């Protein structure tokens, strides 16, 4: 355990920020006083709750020091070898990894817990969702996790297959760069939020494969605020624009990624829907589509005007969302939208460190309410993952952090 945590910190690759920046650890912060105890020393400025969440996440996974050392290349602590091998303590080990094709996992004979019931798991990359549906119906696949809303509806009536919904912690939102006029005006941002047909997106475009969420902590995480204050009200939006000094509306560019958005709709369709919705309030939107990699480059450089994108927390704690969405200095989402509110950032820090659950919940309530009305975001929805599962498969649970544990699965 000590080796594994120190390894992540020493490698200093992007995931190290969870231990180094969020938990405030360095290599000397972790030690094992005896064979059954691991001791972490956290600075007072780090949130114990966030740390526990990080420890339970993939970056806290334990690797075998001897195995890793025997495959070390230079100073990489086995990183290159671990790209297609495993040396962990989980119920499965990697038998084979074929890039762009499949990963084959087999039950770990040395697993410390009960041996998993399925001895071999094959995870295949099937980019076409219609093929996933074909394979599921022909029983060539047991689980399909990339179905469109229409395919899920069709499969719902087929024998031998059931539809299982999986929660995600993703939020699909529009970021409004307050450094770009007139988005600096809170009334204009409020007008944007009143322009959007949230129910049309969730029920029409996504066919119900999403939850209407408008605050920055997703449902399922501690501190979620279920408030949905906004619905489409174009006359109210136009009134707000008049009050803000834009009776004739304004023009703005909306950046959207290419491909499919979570929930099964295309980003392009979502962008077109927003263009139509905002157009009803007099906001003339030009949609520009780029690959997600290019879009993030523009967004991170604070050069987006309005950006349609998603966010998922890096660790399952509300701080994984609240700090990025509120703290300009964290150089994340608030920074990209040039949204600077120091009082709010202090409140976020206080909430992260608060150990009393009631007080912590109250702080998050206060933060989410403030961002809902004053922030530079229009949160559109929290997508639901639609999985097609063969009827004889039992015990399959989708983890909202975006993975599944196969040790509970039987067939």
């Amino acid at each position: 355990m000590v080796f594994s945590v120190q390894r992540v910190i020493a490698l200093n690759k992007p995931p190290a920020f969870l231990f180094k920046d969020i938990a405030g650890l360095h290599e000397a912060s972790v030690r094992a006083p005896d064979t059954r105890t691991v001791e972490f020393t956290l600075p007072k400025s780090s949130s114990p709750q966030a740390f526990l969440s990080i420890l339970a996440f993939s970056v806290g996974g334990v690797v075998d020091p001897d195995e890793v050392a025997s495959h070390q290349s230079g100073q990489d602590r086995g990183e290159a070898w671990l790209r297609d091998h495993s040396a962990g303590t989980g119920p499965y080990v990697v038998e084979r990894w074929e890039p762009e094709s499949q990963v084959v996992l087999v039950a770990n004979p040395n697993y410390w817990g009960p041996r998993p019931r399925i001895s071999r798991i094959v995870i295949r990359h099937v980019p076409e969702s219609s093929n996933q549906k074909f394979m599921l119906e022909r029983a060539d696949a047991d689980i399909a996790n990339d179905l469109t809303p229409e395919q899920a509806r069709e499969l719902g009536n087929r024998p031998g297959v059931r539809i299982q919904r999986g929660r995600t912690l993703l939020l699909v939102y529009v970021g409004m760069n307050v450094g770009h006029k007139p988005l600096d005006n809170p009334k204009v941002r409020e007008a944007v939020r009143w322009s959007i047909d949230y129910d049309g997106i969730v029920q029409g475009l996504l066919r119900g494969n999403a939850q209407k969420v408008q605050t920055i902590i997703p449902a399922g995480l501690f501190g979620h605020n279920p408030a949905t204050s906004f619905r489409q009200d174009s006359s109210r939006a136009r009134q707000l624009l008049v009050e803000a000094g834009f009776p004739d509306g304004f023009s703005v560019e909306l950046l959207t990624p290419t491909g499919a958005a979570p929930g099964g709709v295309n980003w392009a369709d979502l962008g077109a829907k927003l263009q139509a919705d905002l157009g009803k309030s007099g906001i003339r939107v030009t949609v520009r589509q780029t690959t997600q990699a290019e879009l993030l480059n523009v967004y991170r450089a604070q050069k987006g005007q309005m950006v349609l994108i998603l966010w998922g927390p890096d660790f399952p704690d509300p701080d994984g969302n609240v700090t990025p969405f509120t703290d300009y200095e964290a150089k994340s989402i608030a920074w990209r939208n040039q949204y600077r509110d120091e009082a709010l950032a202090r409140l976020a820090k206080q909430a992260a460190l608060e150990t009393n659950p009631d007080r912590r919940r109250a702080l998050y309530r206060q933060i989410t309410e403030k961002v809902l009305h004053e922030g530079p975001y229009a949160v559109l929805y929290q997508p639901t993952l639609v999985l097609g599962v063969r009827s004889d498969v039992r015990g399959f649970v989708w983890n909202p952090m975006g993975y599944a544990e196969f040790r509970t699965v039987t067939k």
Partner: protein
Amino acid sequence: MARYVLRRLLAILVVLAGVSALTFFISHVIPADPVLAALGEHAREDQIRAFRRQYGLDRPLPAQYAIYVRGLLRGDLGLSIRTRRPVAEDLREFFPATIELASAAWLVSLAIGLPAGVLSAVCQDRPFDHLARLVALVGASMPVFWLGLVLLGLFYYRLGWLPGPGRLDVHIAPPPDRTGLLVLDSLLAGRWDALGNALAHLVLPALALGTFSTAVVARMTRSAMLEVLRQDYVRTARAKGLPEGRVLLVHALCNALPPILTVVGISFGNLLSGAVLTETVFSWPGLGRYATASAVSLDFPAVMGVTLLSAVIYPLLNLLVDLGYLLVDPRIRYG
């Protein structure tokens, strides 16, 4: 002859130098930063600096190009930003799948296109000719993506006659990897179960990918054969009372081969580079999928590796076609 081949190979090197310079500078001047795309949301300044140093991105552009060319001369295409492996290693892994698919599609185009073209010419303006021309027209206009989905929907999903996407069924263990070509590796290892399964998996993608080339080969064969069938030597052969089969295959087809060979050679190159959509539809882990994923991730070393590989293949195929003329037309000499 040897001098001719040498001259052509040198010309390929010149093409390669031009393509490498062009792709290198284009990919480095477009306003997109691969570093943030590779390191993700939380990269810190020191990590970004280390990454730039590792990939030589902190140096001036001409110096970067010099390093790249030096690597090329050693067969080193650089490190892929996305997979973090040497690009040459990635190409070795992905290219065989594409060669296997393109070869199968090529065989389909020859096996169907050549006889259809010959028969069409022989039966000019008769029902078979009209039908073949109509089928060729439809085949040449059909989008491969749509055709792939239709073939899968019919022969895999509805009828269950052929296997679904991928190169092998999940319950078939792959043969030991020697060439990366599953059919050949299965043969070499005597793994008949894997051989049968790999061949069955090839049928639908090869049909989808090969349809366009089949149509082109059929049309070219028909027109070349029509041209030759009007020649005096064909009339003479018939007048001498030679069997019609011999007239068609020996006297006519052999003389019609040079233009057909050109089309067939070029179509193999097109099949190799045009497999992107087929590979996506059939979950085929080939070069097309690798190129697309690399381009979307702004993985320039990988994109350049794929481009250079294509830049070698096309002139090589042209050279092979030119050498093939020697076999089919003894009058041709290269000096």
